[in-house]
Protein backbone atom coordinates (compact mmCIF):
# COMPACT_ATOMS: atom_id res chain seq x y z
CA UNK A 1 0.00 0.00 0.00
CA UNK A 2 2.37 2.66 1.19
CA UNK A 3 6.06 2.39 0.53
CA UNK A 4 6.89 3.02 4.12
CA UNK A 5 4.09 0.93 5.62
CA UNK A 6 6.49 -1.36 7.48
CA UNK A 7 8.33 1.53 9.06
CA UNK A 8 5.08 3.16 10.06
CA UNK A 9 3.71 -0.03 11.61
CA UNK A 10 6.95 -0.43 13.52
CA UNK A 11 6.80 3.02 15.04
CA UNK A 12 3.07 2.91 15.75
CA UNK A 13 3.53 -0.39 17.55
CA UNK A 14 6.56 0.94 19.39
CA UNK A 15 4.69 3.97 20.71
CA UNK A 16 1.66 1.97 21.78
CA UNK A 17 3.81 -0.75 23.33
CA UNK A 18 5.65 1.86 25.39
CA UNK A 19 2.33 3.34 26.50
CA UNK A 20 1.10 -0.14 27.42
CA UNK A 21 4.20 -0.76 29.50
CA UNK A 22 3.72 2.59 31.26
CA UNK A 23 0.16 1.62 32.11
CA UNK A 24 1.07 -1.79 33.51
CA UNK A 25 4.55 -1.34 35.02
CA UNK A 26 3.51 0.56 38.18
CA UNK A 27 1.34 -2.39 39.15
CA UNK A 28 4.31 -4.72 38.78
CA UNK A 29 6.29 -2.52 41.14
CA UNK A 30 3.50 -2.83 43.68
CA UNK A 31 3.14 -6.59 43.29
CA UNK A 32 6.88 -7.12 43.46
CA UNK A 33 7.09 -5.05 46.67
CA UNK A 34 4.31 -7.10 48.25
CA UNK A 35 6.34 -10.29 47.65
CA UNK A 36 9.61 -8.80 48.91
CA UNK A 37 11.10 -9.09 52.34
CA UNK A 38 10.98 -5.93 54.37
CA UNK A 39 14.74 -5.80 54.71
CA UNK A 40 15.28 -6.01 50.96
CA UNK A 41 12.83 -3.17 50.46
CA UNK A 42 14.68 -0.92 52.84
CA UNK A 43 18.13 -1.83 51.51
CA UNK A 44 17.50 -1.93 47.76
CA UNK A 45 14.25 0.02 47.52
CA UNK A 46 11.33 -0.86 45.25
CA UNK A 47 12.28 -3.06 42.32
CA UNK A 48 10.33 -4.66 39.48
CA UNK A 49 11.43 -8.09 40.64
CA UNK A 50 11.70 -9.04 44.34
CA UNK A 51 15.34 -9.11 45.45
CA UNK A 52 14.45 -11.42 48.31
CA UNK A 53 11.26 -13.33 47.66
CA UNK A 54 9.18 -13.46 50.77
CA UNK A 55 5.56 -14.30 51.56
CA UNK A 56 5.47 -12.93 55.07
CA UNK A 57 3.25 -9.98 54.12
CA UNK A 58 0.53 -12.32 52.88
CA UNK A 59 1.04 -14.76 55.75
CA UNK A 60 0.57 -11.88 58.16
CA UNK A 61 -2.52 -10.58 56.38
CA UNK A 62 -4.27 -13.91 56.18
CA UNK A 63 -3.26 -15.22 59.58
CA UNK A 64 -4.09 -12.21 61.69
CA UNK A 65 -7.80 -12.23 62.36
CA UNK A 66 -7.25 -8.58 61.63
CA UNK A 67 -8.48 -5.83 59.47
CA UNK A 68 -7.97 -7.31 56.02
CA UNK A 69 -10.60 -10.03 55.82
CA UNK A 70 -13.05 -7.76 57.56
CA UNK A 71 -12.33 -4.94 55.12
CA UNK A 72 -12.72 -7.39 52.25
CA UNK A 73 -16.11 -8.51 53.44
CA UNK A 74 -17.22 -4.91 53.92
CA UNK A 75 -16.08 -4.05 50.39
CA UNK A 76 -17.83 -7.05 48.87
CA UNK A 77 -21.01 -6.58 50.88
CA UNK A 78 -21.31 -2.86 50.14
CA UNK A 79 -20.55 -3.40 46.46
CA UNK A 80 -23.13 -6.16 46.02
CA UNK A 81 -25.92 -4.51 48.02
CA UNK A 82 -25.23 -1.05 46.65
CA UNK A 83 -25.12 -2.23 43.05
CA UNK A 84 -28.36 -4.16 43.34
CA UNK A 85 -30.22 -1.26 44.98
CA UNK A 86 -28.81 1.22 42.53
CA UNK A 87 -29.74 -0.95 39.55
CA UNK A 88 -33.30 -1.40 40.73
CA UNK A 89 -33.76 2.34 41.24
CA UNK A 90 -32.06 3.21 37.96
CA UNK A 91 -34.24 0.81 35.97
CA UNK A 92 -37.41 1.94 37.73
CA UNK A 93 -36.55 5.59 37.08
CA UNK A 94 -35.36 5.32 33.50
CA UNK A 95 -38.11 3.13 32.11
CA UNK A 96 -41.01 5.54 32.81
CA UNK A 97 -38.83 8.41 31.58
CA UNK A 98 -38.44 6.58 28.27
CA UNK A 99 -42.21 6.33 27.78
CA UNK A 100 -43.17 9.15 25.45
CA UNK A 101 -46.82 8.80 26.42
CA UNK A 102 -46.19 9.46 30.13
CA UNK A 103 -47.79 12.76 31.20
CA UNK A 104 -45.31 15.10 32.88
CA UNK A 105 -42.26 13.11 31.91
CA UNK A 106 -40.31 16.28 31.11
CA UNK A 107 -40.84 17.55 34.63
CA UNK A 108 -39.34 14.36 36.04
CA UNK A 109 -36.50 14.47 33.53
CA UNK A 110 -35.67 18.02 34.57
CA UNK A 111 -35.92 17.10 38.25
CA UNK A 112 -33.25 14.48 37.61
CA UNK A 113 -31.24 16.58 35.25
CA UNK A 114 -30.94 19.62 37.47
CA UNK A 115 -28.81 17.60 39.91
CA UNK A 116 -26.15 17.40 37.21
CA UNK A 117 -26.08 21.17 36.77
CA UNK A 118 -26.07 22.45 40.30
CA UNK A 119 -25.23 20.98 43.66
CA UNK A 120 -24.77 22.37 47.10
CA UNK A 121 -21.28 20.95 47.46
CA UNK A 122 -19.67 18.95 50.22
CA UNK A 123 -20.44 21.04 53.28
CA UNK A 124 -24.28 21.20 53.26
CA UNK A 125 -24.43 17.48 52.38
CA UNK A 126 -21.97 16.57 55.07
CA UNK A 127 -23.89 18.53 57.69
CA UNK A 128 -27.19 16.98 56.59
CA UNK A 129 -25.91 13.39 56.64
CA UNK A 130 -24.20 13.74 60.00
CA UNK A 131 -26.60 16.00 61.91
CA UNK A 132 -29.98 14.85 60.59
CA UNK A 133 -29.33 11.27 59.52
CA UNK A 134 -26.46 10.42 61.89
CA UNK A 135 -24.82 8.10 59.41
CA UNK A 136 -21.31 8.59 60.72
CA UNK A 137 -19.80 5.25 61.73
CA UNK A 138 -22.66 3.21 60.32
CA UNK A 139 -22.55 1.00 57.25
CA UNK A 140 -25.05 3.37 55.59
CA UNK A 141 -22.24 5.87 55.22
CA UNK A 142 -20.60 3.62 52.62
CA UNK A 143 -23.86 2.82 50.85
CA UNK A 144 -26.00 5.89 50.62
CA UNK A 145 -24.41 9.30 50.08
CA UNK A 146 -24.03 10.08 46.35
CA UNK A 147 -23.54 6.51 45.17
CA UNK A 148 -27.04 5.11 45.26
CA UNK A 149 -28.18 6.74 42.04
CA UNK A 150 -26.28 8.39 39.22
CA UNK A 151 -28.15 10.73 36.90
CA UNK A 152 -25.80 9.89 34.00
CA UNK A 153 -26.65 6.21 34.28
CA UNK A 154 -30.37 6.94 34.32
CA UNK A 155 -30.07 9.06 31.20
CA UNK A 156 -27.89 6.46 29.49
CA UNK A 157 -30.42 3.72 30.25
CA UNK A 158 -33.38 5.87 29.24
CA UNK A 159 -31.69 6.61 25.91
CA UNK A 160 -31.19 2.89 25.39
CA UNK A 161 -34.85 2.17 26.17
CA UNK A 162 -36.12 4.84 23.78
CA UNK A 163 -33.80 3.86 20.95
CA UNK A 164 -33.79 0.06 21.19
CA UNK A 165 -37.19 -0.98 22.48
CA UNK A 166 -39.99 -0.45 19.98
CA UNK A 167 -43.08 1.25 21.34
CA UNK A 168 -45.20 -1.26 19.39
CA UNK A 169 -44.17 -4.10 21.68
CA UNK A 170 -45.29 -2.14 24.73
CA UNK A 171 -48.55 -1.16 23.01
CA UNK A 172 -49.21 -4.76 22.03
CA UNK A 173 -48.61 -5.97 25.58
CA UNK A 174 -50.97 -3.30 26.87
CA UNK A 175 -53.70 -4.38 24.47
CA UNK A 176 -53.24 -7.93 25.72
CA UNK A 177 -54.01 -6.56 29.17
CA UNK A 178 -50.54 -6.72 30.68
CA UNK A 179 -49.86 -4.49 33.69
CA UNK A 180 -47.08 -1.91 33.58
CA UNK A 181 -44.94 -3.93 35.99
CA UNK A 182 -45.34 -7.05 33.88
CA UNK A 183 -44.43 -5.15 30.71
CA UNK A 184 -41.24 -3.90 32.33
CA UNK A 185 -40.16 -7.28 33.70
CA UNK A 186 -41.31 -9.55 30.86
CA UNK A 187 -40.87 -7.40 27.75
CA UNK A 188 -38.44 -4.58 28.39
CA UNK A 189 -35.79 -6.03 30.70
CA UNK A 190 -34.99 -9.11 28.58
CA UNK A 191 -34.23 -6.76 25.70
CA UNK A 192 -32.13 -4.45 27.84
CA UNK A 193 -29.56 -6.95 29.14
CA UNK A 194 -26.51 -5.22 27.57
CA UNK A 195 -27.29 -1.82 29.07
CA UNK A 196 -28.11 -3.36 32.44
CA UNK A 197 -24.77 -5.14 32.45
CA UNK A 198 -22.99 -1.92 31.51
CA UNK A 199 -24.65 0.14 34.23
CA UNK A 200 -24.15 -2.64 36.79
CA UNK A 201 -20.47 -2.64 35.97
CA UNK A 202 -20.06 1.13 36.25
CA UNK A 203 -21.97 1.20 39.53
CA UNK A 204 -20.10 -1.80 40.94
CA UNK A 205 -16.75 -0.21 40.08
CA UNK A 206 -17.92 2.98 41.75
CA UNK A 207 -18.77 1.18 44.98
CA UNK A 208 -15.67 -0.99 45.03
CA UNK A 209 -13.38 1.98 44.41
CA UNK A 210 -15.07 4.48 46.70
CA UNK A 211 -13.04 5.86 49.57
CA UNK A 212 -14.55 9.33 49.89
CA UNK A 213 -17.62 8.38 51.90
CA UNK A 214 -15.39 6.43 54.26
CA UNK A 215 -13.01 9.37 54.56
CA UNK A 216 -15.86 11.75 55.38
CA UNK A 217 -18.04 9.65 57.63
CA UNK A 218 -16.05 6.79 59.20
CA UNK A 219 -13.61 6.68 62.07
CA UNK A 220 -14.57 3.23 63.37
CA UNK A 221 -12.13 0.80 61.79
CA UNK A 222 -14.47 -2.19 61.98
CA UNK A 223 -16.45 -0.61 59.12
CA UNK A 224 -13.49 0.18 56.85
CA UNK A 225 -13.66 -1.16 53.33
CA UNK A 226 -10.38 -1.97 51.58
CA UNK A 227 -10.19 1.47 49.97
CA UNK A 228 -10.97 3.25 53.23
CA UNK A 229 -8.43 1.11 55.08
CA UNK A 230 -5.77 2.08 52.53
CA UNK A 231 -6.71 5.74 52.80
CA UNK A 232 -6.52 5.73 56.58
CA UNK A 233 -3.18 3.92 56.64
CA UNK A 234 -1.75 6.62 54.37
CA UNK A 235 -3.15 9.38 56.58
CA UNK A 236 -1.51 7.82 59.63
CA UNK A 237 1.81 7.79 57.80
CA UNK A 238 1.39 11.47 56.90
CA UNK A 239 0.62 12.24 60.50
CA UNK A 240 3.81 10.59 61.70
CA UNK A 241 5.83 12.57 59.19
CA UNK A 242 4.29 15.83 60.30
CA UNK A 243 4.80 15.12 64.01
CA UNK A 244 7.85 12.93 63.76
CA UNK A 245 8.90 13.25 67.41
CA UNK A 246 5.75 11.91 69.00
CA UNK A 247 5.09 9.35 66.31
CA UNK A 248 6.60 6.33 68.01
CA UNK A 249 3.40 4.94 69.47
CA UNK A 250 1.44 5.42 66.25
CA UNK A 251 4.34 3.90 64.33
CA UNK A 252 3.63 0.52 65.88
CA UNK A 253 0.20 0.46 64.26
CA UNK A 254 1.46 1.19 60.76
CA UNK A 255 1.83 -1.91 58.62
CA UNK A 256 5.21 -2.45 56.97
CA UNK A 257 5.80 -1.43 53.35
CA UNK A 258 5.30 -4.92 51.95
CA UNK A 259 2.09 -5.40 53.92
CA UNK A 260 0.75 -2.10 52.67
CA UNK A 261 1.56 -2.98 49.10
CA UNK A 262 -0.04 -6.40 49.61
CA UNK A 263 -3.26 -4.76 50.82
CA UNK A 264 -3.23 -2.42 47.81
CA UNK A 265 -2.67 -5.38 45.48
CA UNK A 266 -5.53 -7.30 47.07
CA UNK A 267 -7.63 -4.18 46.62
CA UNK A 268 -7.19 -4.21 42.83
CA UNK A 269 -7.01 -7.97 42.38
CA UNK A 270 -10.77 -8.60 42.08
CA UNK A 271 -11.01 -5.90 39.41
CA UNK A 272 -8.06 -7.30 37.48
CA UNK A 273 -9.48 -10.83 37.63
CA UNK A 274 -12.95 -9.75 36.53
CA UNK A 275 -11.70 -7.28 33.91
CA UNK A 276 -11.46 -9.69 30.94
CA UNK A 277 -15.09 -10.66 31.52
CA UNK A 278 -16.48 -7.15 31.77
CA UNK A 279 -14.19 -5.37 29.31
CA UNK A 280 -16.82 -5.57 26.59
CA UNK A 281 -19.41 -3.82 28.74
CA UNK A 282 -16.95 -1.23 29.94
CA UNK A 283 -16.05 -0.28 26.39
CA UNK A 284 -19.74 -0.09 25.59
CA UNK A 285 -20.31 2.21 28.56
CA UNK A 286 -17.48 4.48 27.43
CA UNK A 287 -18.61 4.71 23.83
CA UNK A 288 -22.31 5.09 24.59
CA UNK A 289 -21.56 7.84 27.07
CA UNK A 290 -19.43 9.56 24.47
CA UNK A 291 -22.04 9.71 21.78
CA UNK A 292 -24.65 11.27 23.99
CA UNK A 293 -24.98 11.68 27.72
Amino acid at each position, binding site marked *: MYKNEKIF*QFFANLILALLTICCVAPFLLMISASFSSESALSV*YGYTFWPKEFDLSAYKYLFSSTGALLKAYSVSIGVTVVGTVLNLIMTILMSYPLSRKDLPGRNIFAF*YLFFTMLF*NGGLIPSYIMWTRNFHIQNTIWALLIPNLLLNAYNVIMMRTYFTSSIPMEIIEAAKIDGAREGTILVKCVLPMAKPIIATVALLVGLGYWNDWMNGLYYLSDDSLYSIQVL*LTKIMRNIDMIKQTSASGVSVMAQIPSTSVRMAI*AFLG*VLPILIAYPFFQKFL*VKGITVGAVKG
Partner: protein
Amino acid sequence: MKSKMRKIRRYWPLYLMMLPACIYIFINNYVPLPGVSLAFRQYNFQKGIYGSPFIGLKNFKFLFASKDAWIIMRNTIGYNLIFIVLGTVCAIAVAILLCEIRSKISKKIYQTCILIPYLVSMVIISYLVFAFLSEGNGYINTQILAKLGMNKISWYNEPKYWPVILVIVNLWKNIGYNSIMYYAMIIAIDKTYYEAARVDGAGRWQQILHITLPAIKPTIVILTLMSVGRIMYSDFGLFYQIPMNSGTLLDVTNTIDTYVYRGLMQTNNIGMSAAAGVYQSVVGFILVITANLIVKKVDPESALF
Protein backbone atom coordinates in the same frame (compact mmCIF):
# COMPACT_ATOMS: atom_id res chain seq x y z
CA MET B 1 -58.91 18.82 32.96
CA LYS B 2 -60.92 15.80 34.02
CA SER B 3 -59.61 13.72 31.17
CA LYS B 4 -56.10 14.79 32.11
CA MET B 5 -56.61 13.59 35.66
CA ARG B 6 -57.95 10.31 34.36
CA LYS B 7 -54.89 9.96 32.13
CA ILE B 8 -52.54 10.57 35.05
CA ARG B 9 -54.46 8.00 37.10
CA ARG B 10 -54.06 5.47 34.34
CA TYR B 11 -50.30 5.87 34.54
CA TRP B 12 -49.96 5.58 38.30
CA PRO B 13 -47.84 2.39 38.19
CA LEU B 14 -45.21 4.28 36.20
CA TYR B 15 -45.15 7.12 38.70
CA LEU B 16 -44.89 4.59 41.50
CA MET B 17 -41.83 3.09 39.82
CA MET B 18 -40.10 6.47 39.83
CA LEU B 19 -40.88 7.08 43.49
CA PRO B 20 -37.80 5.46 45.12
CA ALA B 21 -35.35 7.28 42.86
CA CYS B 22 -37.23 10.56 43.25
CA ILE B 23 -37.14 10.30 47.03
CA TYR B 24 -33.45 9.50 46.99
CA ILE B 25 -32.65 12.40 44.67
CA PHE B 26 -34.74 14.67 46.84
CA ILE B 27 -32.80 13.77 49.97
CA ASN B 28 -29.35 13.46 48.46
CA ASN B 29 -29.46 16.44 46.10
CA TYR B 30 -32.29 18.82 46.97
CA VAL B 31 -32.49 18.84 50.77
CA PRO B 32 -28.88 20.12 51.14
CA LEU B 33 -29.43 22.96 48.64
CA PRO B 34 -30.74 25.60 51.11
CA GLY B 35 -27.63 24.76 53.13
CA VAL B 36 -25.61 26.90 50.75
CA SER B 37 -26.90 29.81 52.83
CA LEU B 38 -24.22 28.71 55.30
CA ALA B 39 -21.78 30.75 53.24
CA PHE B 40 -23.58 33.89 54.45
CA ARG B 41 -23.72 32.81 58.09
CA GLN B 42 -21.43 32.50 61.07
CA TYR B 43 -21.57 28.74 61.61
CA ASN B 44 -22.56 27.74 65.10
CA PHE B 45 -22.13 24.03 65.66
CA GLN B 46 -24.79 23.81 68.38
CA LYS B 47 -27.44 25.61 66.39
CA GLY B 48 -26.86 24.00 62.99
CA ILE B 49 -27.01 25.74 59.63
CA TYR B 50 -30.41 27.35 59.94
CA GLY B 51 -29.92 28.54 63.50
CA SER B 52 -26.62 30.28 62.76
CA PRO B 53 -26.79 34.07 62.41
CA PHE B 54 -26.42 35.82 59.05
CA ILE B 55 -23.26 37.86 58.63
CA GLY B 56 -23.66 38.99 55.02
CA LEU B 57 -20.66 38.68 52.74
CA LYS B 58 -18.02 38.49 55.47
CA ASN B 59 -17.05 34.90 54.67
CA PHE B 60 -16.47 35.86 51.04
CA LYS B 61 -14.52 38.97 52.05
CA PHE B 62 -12.21 36.91 54.26
CA LEU B 63 -11.87 34.26 51.60
CA PHE B 64 -10.94 36.63 48.81
CA ALA B 65 -8.66 38.65 51.08
CA SER B 66 -6.62 35.50 51.82
CA LYS B 67 -3.93 34.36 49.46
CA ASP B 68 -5.56 30.92 49.37
CA ALA B 69 -8.36 32.26 47.17
CA TRP B 70 -5.95 33.09 44.37
CA ILE B 71 -4.01 29.85 44.78
CA ILE B 72 -7.01 27.52 44.70
CA MET B 73 -8.55 29.33 41.74
CA ARG B 74 -5.29 29.28 39.80
CA ASN B 75 -4.69 25.61 40.56
CA THR B 76 -8.23 24.46 39.83
CA ILE B 77 -8.55 26.28 36.52
CA GLY B 78 -4.92 25.97 35.48
CA TYR B 79 -4.66 22.22 35.97
CA ASN B 80 -8.01 21.67 34.31
CA LEU B 81 -6.92 23.64 31.24
CA ILE B 82 -3.73 21.60 30.95
CA PHE B 83 -5.67 18.36 31.46
CA ILE B 84 -8.20 19.30 28.77
CA VAL B 85 -5.60 20.24 26.15
CA LEU B 86 -3.04 17.50 26.82
CA GLY B 87 -5.69 14.87 27.52
CA THR B 88 -7.51 15.53 24.26
CA VAL B 89 -4.41 15.71 22.09
CA CYS B 90 -2.84 12.55 23.51
CA ALA B 91 -6.10 10.61 23.44
CA ILE B 92 -6.71 11.45 19.79
CA ALA B 93 -3.13 10.59 18.86
CA VAL B 94 -3.41 7.22 20.59
CA ALA B 95 -6.82 6.57 19.03
CA ILE B 96 -5.49 7.28 15.53
CA LEU B 97 -2.48 5.03 16.10
CA LEU B 98 -4.73 2.26 17.42
CA CYS B 99 -6.84 2.44 14.27
CA GLU B 100 -3.77 2.03 12.09
CA ILE B 101 -2.39 -1.06 13.83
CA ARG B 102 -2.66 -4.08 11.54
CA SER B 103 -2.06 -6.91 13.98
CA LYS B 104 -5.34 -7.80 15.68
CA ILE B 105 -3.65 -9.38 18.70
CA SER B 106 -1.39 -6.45 19.50
CA LYS B 107 -4.30 -4.08 19.03
CA LYS B 108 -6.35 -6.04 21.55
CA ILE B 109 -3.47 -6.09 24.04
CA TYR B 110 -2.96 -2.32 23.78
CA GLN B 111 -6.66 -1.60 24.18
CA THR B 112 -6.92 -3.87 27.20
CA CYS B 113 -3.86 -2.56 29.00
CA ILE B 114 -4.33 1.18 28.56
CA LEU B 115 -7.74 0.95 30.23
CA ILE B 116 -6.40 -0.67 33.41
CA PRO B 117 -5.44 2.60 35.17
CA TYR B 118 -8.98 3.86 34.65
CA LEU B 119 -10.33 0.93 36.71
CA VAL B 120 -8.28 1.67 39.78
CA SER B 121 -9.12 4.05 42.61
CA MET B 122 -7.03 7.11 43.42
CA VAL B 123 -6.01 5.54 46.74
CA ILE B 124 -4.38 2.64 44.97
CA ILE B 125 -2.77 5.05 42.52
CA SER B 126 -1.37 7.04 45.44
CA TYR B 127 0.31 3.81 46.60
CA LEU B 128 1.73 3.26 43.11
CA VAL B 129 3.05 6.82 42.95
CA PHE B 130 4.50 6.41 46.43
CA ALA B 131 6.40 3.32 45.26
CA PHE B 132 8.12 5.55 42.70
CA LEU B 133 8.58 8.70 44.75
CA SER B 134 9.12 7.57 48.34
CA GLU B 135 12.22 9.37 49.58
CA GLY B 136 13.86 6.46 51.37
CA ASN B 137 13.30 3.54 49.02
CA GLY B 138 11.23 4.80 46.08
CA TYR B 139 12.09 3.45 42.64
CA ILE B 140 13.21 6.78 41.20
CA ASN B 141 15.51 7.65 44.09
CA THR B 142 17.07 4.22 44.61
CA GLN B 143 17.10 2.73 41.09
CA ILE B 144 17.44 5.72 38.79
CA LEU B 145 18.94 8.74 40.56
CA ALA B 146 21.34 6.64 42.65
CA LYS B 147 22.61 4.80 39.58
CA LEU B 148 23.15 8.11 37.79
CA GLY B 149 25.14 9.26 40.80
CA MET B 150 22.61 11.95 41.66
CA ASN B 151 21.33 12.96 45.06
CA LYS B 152 18.00 11.72 46.38
CA ILE B 153 15.09 14.06 45.95
CA SER B 154 12.56 14.55 48.71
CA TRP B 155 9.64 14.44 46.29
CA TYR B 156 6.87 15.05 48.78
CA ASN B 157 8.54 18.23 49.99
CA GLU B 158 9.47 19.83 46.67
CA PRO B 159 6.57 21.79 45.16
CA LYS B 160 8.35 22.48 41.87
CA TYR B 161 7.97 18.90 40.60
CA TRP B 162 4.30 18.52 41.39
CA PRO B 163 2.65 20.28 38.46
CA VAL B 164 4.41 17.76 36.21
CA ILE B 165 3.68 14.78 38.46
CA LEU B 166 -0.03 15.61 38.72
CA VAL B 167 -0.35 16.10 34.98
CA ILE B 168 1.35 12.75 34.32
CA VAL B 169 -0.84 10.91 36.83
CA ASN B 170 -4.02 12.44 35.42
CA LEU B 171 -2.98 11.66 31.87
CA TRP B 172 -2.00 8.12 32.83
CA LYS B 173 -5.31 7.43 34.51
CA ASN B 174 -7.56 8.86 31.83
CA ILE B 175 -5.81 8.28 28.54
CA GLY B 176 -7.32 4.83 28.09
CA TYR B 177 -10.87 6.02 28.63
CA ASN B 178 -10.53 9.00 26.29
CA SER B 179 -8.70 7.21 23.54
CA ILE B 180 -11.16 4.29 23.51
CA MET B 181 -13.92 6.88 23.13
CA TYR B 182 -12.24 8.58 20.17
CA TYR B 183 -11.25 5.20 18.74
CA ALA B 184 -14.92 4.16 18.60
CA MET B 185 -15.70 7.36 16.77
CA ILE B 186 -12.89 7.01 14.27
CA ILE B 187 -13.68 3.43 13.29
CA ALA B 188 -17.27 4.54 12.68
CA ILE B 189 -16.11 6.91 9.90
CA ASP B 190 -17.23 5.70 6.48
CA LYS B 191 -14.33 3.73 4.93
CA THR B 192 -15.14 4.88 1.41
CA TYR B 193 -13.75 8.36 2.20
CA TYR B 194 -10.36 6.83 2.85
CA GLU B 195 -10.51 4.66 -0.26
CA ALA B 196 -11.39 7.67 -2.40
CA ALA B 197 -8.57 9.67 -0.83
CA ARG B 198 -6.11 6.86 -1.49
CA VAL B 199 -7.18 6.67 -5.13
CA ASP B 200 -6.49 10.39 -5.33
CA GLY B 201 -3.03 9.73 -3.96
CA ALA B 202 -3.44 11.15 -0.45
CA GLY B 203 -0.87 9.95 2.08
CA ARG B 204 -1.62 8.80 5.57
CA TRP B 205 -0.91 12.20 7.11
CA GLN B 206 -3.21 13.92 4.63
CA GLN B 207 -5.97 11.40 5.34
CA ILE B 208 -5.73 12.09 9.06
CA LEU B 209 -5.70 15.83 8.46
CA HIS B 210 -8.51 15.97 5.93
CA ILE B 211 -10.77 13.04 6.83
CA THR B 212 -10.27 11.78 10.38
CA LEU B 213 -9.89 15.07 12.23
CA PRO B 214 -12.74 16.90 10.46
CA ALA B 215 -14.99 13.91 11.05
CA ILE B 216 -14.43 13.90 14.81
CA LYS B 217 -14.18 17.69 15.11
CA PRO B 218 -17.76 18.23 16.36
CA THR B 219 -17.21 15.69 19.12
CA ILE B 220 -13.91 17.26 20.10
CA VAL B 221 -15.56 20.68 20.28
CA ILE B 222 -18.46 19.38 22.35
CA LEU B 223 -16.39 17.34 24.78
CA THR B 224 -13.99 20.24 25.24
CA LEU B 225 -16.84 22.66 25.88
CA MET B 226 -18.35 20.27 28.40
CA SER B 227 -15.00 19.97 30.17
CA VAL B 228 -14.68 23.75 30.21
CA GLY B 229 -18.14 23.82 31.78
CA ARG B 230 -16.70 21.71 34.61
CA ILE B 231 -13.49 23.69 34.95
CA MET B 232 -14.33 24.83 38.49
CA TYR B 233 -14.44 21.22 39.70
CA SER B 234 -11.22 19.33 40.34
CA ASP B 235 -10.64 15.64 40.87
CA PHE B 236 -10.53 15.55 44.68
CA GLY B 237 -8.74 12.20 44.74
CA LEU B 238 -5.97 13.37 42.44
CA PHE B 239 -5.17 16.46 44.49
CA TYR B 240 -5.75 14.94 47.91
CA GLN B 241 -4.46 11.37 47.70
CA ILE B 242 -1.56 11.60 45.25
CA PRO B 243 0.41 14.35 47.10
CA MET B 244 -0.35 12.43 50.34
CA ASN B 245 -1.99 15.50 51.89
CA SER B 246 1.48 17.01 52.21
CA GLY B 247 1.44 20.49 53.71
CA THR B 248 4.60 21.71 51.98
CA LEU B 249 3.04 21.08 48.58
CA LEU B 250 -0.19 23.01 49.17
CA ASP B 251 0.86 25.91 46.94
CA VAL B 252 0.71 23.70 43.88
CA THR B 253 -1.78 21.04 44.99
CA ASN B 254 -4.55 22.94 46.75
CA THR B 255 -7.73 23.23 44.66
CA ILE B 256 -11.23 24.40 45.52
CA ASP B 257 -12.31 20.86 46.41
CA THR B 258 -9.37 20.10 48.68
CA TYR B 259 -9.67 23.55 50.27
CA VAL B 260 -13.34 22.96 51.08
CA TYR B 261 -12.53 19.53 52.49
CA ARG B 262 -9.70 20.81 54.68
CA GLY B 263 -11.81 23.72 55.91
CA LEU B 264 -14.49 21.27 56.97
CA MET B 265 -12.39 18.45 58.43
CA GLN B 266 -8.97 19.74 59.37
CA THR B 267 -8.69 23.49 59.86
CA ASN B 268 -12.26 23.96 61.08
CA ASN B 269 -12.71 27.01 58.90
CA ILE B 270 -16.25 26.24 57.83
CA GLY B 271 -17.33 29.78 56.93
CA MET B 272 -14.63 30.35 54.34
CA SER B 273 -14.80 26.90 52.90
CA ALA B 274 -18.59 27.14 52.58
CA ALA B 275 -18.04 30.42 50.74
CA ALA B 276 -15.55 28.71 48.42
CA GLY B 277 -18.05 25.90 47.84
CA VAL B 278 -20.86 28.28 46.92
CA TYR B 279 -18.56 30.23 44.66
CA GLN B 280 -17.65 26.96 42.94
CA SER B 281 -21.29 25.87 42.55
CA VAL B 282 -22.51 29.20 41.20
CA VAL B 283 -19.67 29.87 38.77
CA GLY B 284 -19.76 26.19 37.76
CA PHE B 285 -23.48 26.44 37.07
CA ILE B 286 -23.04 29.54 34.91
CA LEU B 287 -20.21 27.88 32.99
CA VAL B 288 -22.19 24.69 32.31
CA ILE B 289 -25.17 26.67 31.06
CA THR B 290 -22.94 28.81 28.85
CA ALA B 291 -21.09 25.79 27.50
CA ASN B 292 -24.37 24.13 26.68
CA LEU B 293 -25.64 27.24 24.87
CA ILE B 294 -22.53 27.25 22.72
CA VAL B 295 -22.85 23.51 22.04
CA LYS B 296 -26.42 24.11 21.00
CA LYS B 297 -25.19 26.63 18.44
CA VAL B 298 -22.48 24.30 17.14
CA ASP B 299 -24.53 21.14 17.04
CA PRO B 300 -28.09 21.15 18.45
CA GLU B 301 -28.12 17.34 18.49
CA SER B 302 -25.35 17.13 21.07
CA ALA B 303 -26.59 19.73 23.52
CA LEU B 304 -27.37 18.38 26.96
CA PHE B 305 -30.69 20.22 27.13
